[in-house]
């Protein structure tokens, strides 16, 4: 526990940790907002996702700056920055999915329901990522949190597999209709990949502290 205290216990470190938690919470809010917009087919609400991404971006810049101003021992700084950038990748794909949603014609009820299920798992994954990040500074077992993230990711993979199979048999009227739908699904399902990568990286950080 002493090493964790030495590495994470300072004032500057605590500030960065608190900002990273806020960063993940904003991702969580964006995922929540995304799902509600999808359920209610609310194209105005989906516009909040890019707004939250921008807010997250400014926090990410602030975190990186604080780290290189002197928070954390130099050996761990690149790892913390890399983790933050990985979370940012989840933001980016969610934002891309939100942009595609604005032009999307989702007339197939079954496809829509499956997309909502994916959006729901994305929310749970954001929550679990936050729990995993909080565990980094405790004696608790991080492995079981990253396993939970992997279970969720497998669920998204399963839904995606069936969805893609279904979409292959769907009649597409125009090039753009097909491209937007395909890109939307691809971005939506990439959110979980990005969160899983970030969660796995947390595990690597924890191992590097041993």
């Amino acid at each position, binding site marked *: 526990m002493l090493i964790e205290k030495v590495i994470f216990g300072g004032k500057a470190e605590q500030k960065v940790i608190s900002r990273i938690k806020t960063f993940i919470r904003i991702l969580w809010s964006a995922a929540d907002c995304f799902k509600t917009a999808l359920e209610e087919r609310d194209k105005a609400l989906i516009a909040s996702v890019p707004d939250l991404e921008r807010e997250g971006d400014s926090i990410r810049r602030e975190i990186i700056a604080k780290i290189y101003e002197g928070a954390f021992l130099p050996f761990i700084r690149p790892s913390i920055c890399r983790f933050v950038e990985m979370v940012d990748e989840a933001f980016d794909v969610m934002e891309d999915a939100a942009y595609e949603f604005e032009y999307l014609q989702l007339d197939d009820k079954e496809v829509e329901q499956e997309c909502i299920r994916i959006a729901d798992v994305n929310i*749970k994954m954001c929550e679990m990522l936050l*729990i995993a990040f909080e565990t980094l500074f405790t004696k608790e077992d991080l492995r079981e949190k990253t396993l*939970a993230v992997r279970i969720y990711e497998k669920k998204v993979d399963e839904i995606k597999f069936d969805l893609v199979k279904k979409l292959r048999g769907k009649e597409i009227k125009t090039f753009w209709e097909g491209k937007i739908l395909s890109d939307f699904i691809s971005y939506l399902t990439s959110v979980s990949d990005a969160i899983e990568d970030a969660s796995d990286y947390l595990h690597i950080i924890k191992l590097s502290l041993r």
Partner: protein
Amino acid sequence: MKAEDIMTTKIEFIDHDAPVYDAIEKMIDRRIRSLVVRPRDEKDVYGIITARDIIYKVLGENLDPKKIKVEEITEKPLVFIDKKMDIEHIISLMKRFNIARVFVCEGMEVIGVVALLDVMSASLIKKARGSRVD
């Protein structure tokens, strides 16, 4: 966590008089391990045919799956649960009846299935979430 949170909604059905070969095809195509067998008539009940049944009772016995009907190896009846049943209750039910899956119904309709792997995943997630509420 309730049954509705962890159930799989991907349920595939097969007719009682279909050949086992059709069941094999369906399971491979859909990447699933069991199929719900439709009742023969109004007096009959739903059944289940699993990959395990097919291997032990047909392929393992060197029988021709094209000649054996699904109903010949169907297990009946299914164990149904309410979608609001919690995970601890599901585990004790599975343990008591020594079954690998239970079916979730809403009224007369089968809306999902909870298999051992779903229960295991849900238990791990519950443990990882700790004291946080759903």
